[in-house]
């Protein structure tokens, strides 16, 4: 594992209270963060949360309205995109339709006036890396979505940028292909050792691929951390709700399960359903309830349980098979138990 903090080394990308407004709309509000060299960094958030604007600020397509951006220690204010050592894989790939696959991949070298034979050799290598060898002469229009995606990757990587920016690169692919490309992208990143900055609204993708991720909301970063940090210790109700599923509890229920009044988040898979008279181990909280409904999800079953002061969702592994475990049907009286360390306190101002 790479270190999760920048440490002594110069970060690949650093934001120092960067803002960006479009007219009256503040898309990015005084955002500060650092991305370590060689890190796979995901920027996660709903649409309009400012994550894509941050990516475009790194690329140089947008200029900050305030603050400072550094790439490998250099202040890049006013540096045009073509003078920055970063490249982008666009959401819709933006392949040049009038050029062949090979010419697309070679573009950066052609601009730098690299000799034709050398260009062709390196394009061949890149196409091999993304497993598209032999498609040099095809036109982008003749390729499938997954193949276009790889051409875009090869084109962006050919000049060995120090930072690769990816803007929802898997958004247009179907689920199966997307999962396969996630693995490929991750192993590609390891083998080339380039810093990847990856924008996505898919929390599963961010958790699966990134070394660290930043959760964006309303132009701010709500939380930065490793996937396990963010999932297990969400800093706010927003993060808890956006990354994975969660039970947000307050009032009486919060007092009962958390021990103190406040706002808490509890992951549904951390709650276990036991018999009403089951003993409670030390360090655990418990509450009685009645099953309201069950939803069969294949690998797991989601059980809604009405308790005093609210309703809790529980996810149980589907260990027995069949739609519902015995004693879990609607109306069944059960006891819910959760270890107190999984009852996660949220910042008071969150929401």
């Amino acid at each position, binding site marked *: 594992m790479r270190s999760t903090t920048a440490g002594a080394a110069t970060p690949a990308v650093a934001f120092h209270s960067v803002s960006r407004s479009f007219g009256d709309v503040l898309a990015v509000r005084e955002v500060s963060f650092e991305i370590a060299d060689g890190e796979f960094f995901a920027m996660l958030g709903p649409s309009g949360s400012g994550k894509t604007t941050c990516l475009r600020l790194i*690329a140089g397509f947008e200029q900050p309205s305030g603050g400072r951006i550094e790439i490998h220690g250099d202040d890049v204010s006013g540096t045009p995109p*073509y003078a920055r050592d970063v490249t982008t894989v666009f959401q*819709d790939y933006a392949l040049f339709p009038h050029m062949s696959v090979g010419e697309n991949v070679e573009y950066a070298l052609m601009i*730098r006036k690299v000799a034709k034979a050398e260009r062709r050799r390196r394009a061949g290598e890149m196409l091999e890396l993304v497993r598209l060898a032999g498609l040099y002469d095809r036109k982008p229009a003749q390729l499938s979505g997954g193949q276009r995606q790889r051409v875009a990757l090869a084109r962006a990587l050919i000049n060995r940028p120090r930072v690769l920016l990816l803007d929802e690169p898997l958004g247009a692919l179907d689920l199966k292909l997307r999962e396969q490309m996630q693995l490929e992208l991750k192993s590609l990143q390891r083998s080339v050792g380039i810093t990847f900055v990856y924008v996505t609204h898919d929390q599963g993708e961010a958790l699966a691929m990134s070394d660290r991720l930043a959760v964006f909301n309303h132009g701010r970063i709500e939380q930065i951390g490793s996937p396990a940090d963010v999932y297990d210790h969400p800093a706010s109700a927003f993060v808890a709700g956006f990354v994975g599923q969660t039970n947000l509890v307050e009032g009486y229920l919060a007092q009962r399960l958390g021990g103190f009044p406040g706002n808490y988040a509890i992951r549904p898979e951390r709650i276990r359903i036991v018999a009403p008279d089951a003993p409670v181990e030390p360090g655990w909280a418990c509450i009685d309830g009645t099953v309201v409904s069950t939803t069969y999800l294949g690998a797991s079953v989601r059980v809604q349980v009405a308790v005093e002061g609210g309703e809790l969702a529980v996810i149980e592994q589907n260990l027995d098979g069949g739609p519902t475990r015995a004693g879990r049907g609607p109306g069944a009286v059960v006891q819910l138990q959760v270890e107190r360390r999984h009852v996660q306190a949220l910042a008071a101002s969150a929401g």
Partner: protein
Amino acid sequence: MPSDRHGARPGIALRTAALGGMLFLHVPIAIIVLYAFSSESKSFVFPIPGFTLKWFGVAFQRPDIREALLLSLQVAAVSTIVAMILGTLAAAAVWRSRFFGREAVSLLLILPIALPGIITGIALRAALNLAEIPFSFWTIVIGHATFCIVVVYNNVLARFRRTNRALIEASMDLGADGFQTLRHVILPNIATALLAGGMLAFALSFDEVIVTTFTAGQQSTLPIWMLSELVRPRERPVTNVVAVFVIAVTFVPIVLAFRLTRDTQDVAGSTK
């Protein structure tokens, strides 16, 4: 025939009407072409009394025709070049940026082709008089450029609107500056639309009569020469020979322009 592809054959009435329409449109043109080969020089008689190619020789011998043809070609060429440059720049500005009065600029550019030529002509003549600019080759070019720009502008703007803006960002991102992006990405993408627009502009300019009448002064372009020839004819078939020539010069670019834009629609459509 496209109608056959959809299965049902059109009824006899529809086919007769279509045939009638086609004949109505094209028989007069066929007659013009036919009379270019007639051996009778004073009047139009049908069928033509004899077939001859001599009028082609006569037409190319006459200095007034040669001058008119040369002027028309020069005017069309220069107007087309002016239109291609200004039309493309205007289309690029309207496509790329959002500025105050953008819609107005768009409308003003299209207006000259919507306005009757006679209005454009009178307006230009009045403006030229006011500015005390003498009529010359360049005043004809200015007159023609007003409607040639529109044709290029419309064609190129339509292509721009089908072009992914991210292509420009992708190019800049990969190290190309503005000029390199123009050369390697923008121009190749709009090339066929630009060429098609240019060809249509050339054809429009080549056979323009009305605006030219108001801006030409003493010179005559080929269409103006034909008009004067109708009023006081000398050798009738010579006019028809020139007409055949005008048909050829305007028809070829229009067909080419049609083919150019048709072929590229597939490409542009599949790479959204």
